[in-house]
């Protein structure tokens, strides 16, 4: 019953509602600062620089009021990758040998480089998690649409992309529920999704996909008619229930963070 039960617990965007300073910031501010931080982290190559960046992120976590365990939860699936990055770099970099066993040589330069890459990855993941933890998927969509709007002139379909994201967010739980229902129906008739090797399991999923696709297309058809009946005619002339508002706080946070991250990136 394992795969059936697990579908329920998938949460998208893992947003945690709140009233903190970070929650109240304009999603565009948060998206821009996060982008800047992600790019900035690739330019930092001193431990002092990473320490300062970590301090900045810790301050953000503190102001968001989000329990730190939620941030570390985001790290769990990638812990192997982080460890692997650290090991590969520690053992594969040439330099002053600290320890040797067979063909494995641990070097001082490797340790330093591996450590730095691991920290960079951790900061990247924790930093972007703050964005998704404090911003509802809808606000995130609105923010992205607004930021992409100027790109319309060069052919970026901002509204359409945002509408696609909205509909995906709306329908993922419905489709998961449906998958669960079909799986149970087929299990009741003797289908087996849990035993066998990877190939056999993949093959047992095939009869699941066909009804799922058929129903997804049916839903898409229905939804298109329902949207048209409610006067949907694209992004032109459309208004929003929740208007994004860029406040003084947003301005201060954006300017302050930009200067700090740029300074870190270029001097550290």
């Amino acid at each position, binding site marked *: 019953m394992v795969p059936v039960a697990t579908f329920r617990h998938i949460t998208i965007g893992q947003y945690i509602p709140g009233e903190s300073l970070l929650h109240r910031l304009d999603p565009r501010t948060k998206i821009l600062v996060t982008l800047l931080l992600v790019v900035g982290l690739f330019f930092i190559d001193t431990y002092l620089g990473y320490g300062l960046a970590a301090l900045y992120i810790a301050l953000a976590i503190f102001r968001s009021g989000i329990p730190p365990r939620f941030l570390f939860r985001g790290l769990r699936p990638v812990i192997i990758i982080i460890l692997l990055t650290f090991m590969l770099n520690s053992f594969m970099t040439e330099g002053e040998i600290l320890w040797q066993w067979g063909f494995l040589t641990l070097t001082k330069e490797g340790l330093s480089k591996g450590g730095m890459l691991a920290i960079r990855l951790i900061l990247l993941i924790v930093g972007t998690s703050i964005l998704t933890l404090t911003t509802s*998927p809808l606000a995130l969509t609105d923010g992205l649409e607004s930021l992409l709007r100027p790109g319309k002139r060069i052919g970026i379909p901002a509204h359409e992309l945002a509408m696609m994201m909205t509909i995906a967010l709306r329908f993922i739980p419905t489709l998961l529920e449906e998958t669960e229902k079909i799986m149970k129906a087929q299990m009741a008739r003797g289908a087996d999704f849990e035993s066998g090797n990877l190939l056999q399991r993949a093959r047992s999923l095939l009869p699941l996909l066909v009804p799922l696709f058929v129903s997804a297309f049916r*839903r898409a058809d229905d939804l298109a008619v329902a*949207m048209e009946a409610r006067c949907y005619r694209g992004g032109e002339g459309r208004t929003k*229930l929740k208007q994004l508002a860029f406040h003084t706080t947003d301005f201060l946070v954006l300017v302050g963070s930009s200067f700090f991250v740029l300074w870190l990136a270029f001097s550290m």
Partner: protein
Amino acid sequence: MMGNKDSFITVDKVSFSYTGESGAAEGTALDQVSLNIAAGEFVAIVGHNGSGKSTLAKHLNGLLLPTSGDVWVAGMNTKDEQHRWDIRQTVGMVFQNPDNQIVAATVEEDVAFGPENLGLPTELIRSRVDEALAVVGMSEYAEAPPHSLSGGQKQRVAIAGVIAMRPRCLVLDEPTAMLDPVGRREVMETISRLNEEEGITVVLITHFMDEAVKAHRVVVMDEGKIVQEGQPAAVFQEIDLLRELRLDVPPVIELASRLRAKSLALPEAILTVDEMVTALCQLRSEV
């Protein structure tokens, strides 16, 4: 020609055929259908599967355009491009599957979808959303994700999404078909209230005869044609015709007809259990 003067929606000799991939017509889904609906009226449309009910419904707000004939909504012809959005706003539509008509990931964002499409200012959208949610009794769920709601609640949200556009008419295509009895009752109460208190014209397509009985007028369809039309009391007396059209006869009406056959002097207008009880009690006191 603008059809009948008192008529809010006029369907005038409408025929319609779906065209297949090749562009060839695939038989007639509607055959010379004429129907007048007055403002404030509550009309139920019943008929066997494939009788053309959904096709007719989609003509009432211009989702489909007649192959021949005309549909007029508040004096606007649905074929007139220029009135398309006015017509869609005037005649709101609710569909059978609540899951497939909710667009947004929270209840209030979904109810706002229609007003947003109309380009209303933000404050007005807010007040329309709050009002619409209050009318269907879903205010406390404003921020809930739709998938956490019951079927009846989802369908009320879908109704709110249409109400928020301030339509004068609501067309509901089997809105209770996928709901449990509790959900059905919630939705039917909401529809009755909208008709009685808000004066909204209601066209309800249903295959539950006990719902059709609540309408002012019942229209029976078969093979793309209107075969019977009248007040529920009159239409449901013709049990043989209903059977012939493969429609369920509400048990109360069936019982009344059998009792009458046993020469019990029951009045003609018995449609609900309550009416039956009253009639039987009266008979008893007369004895």
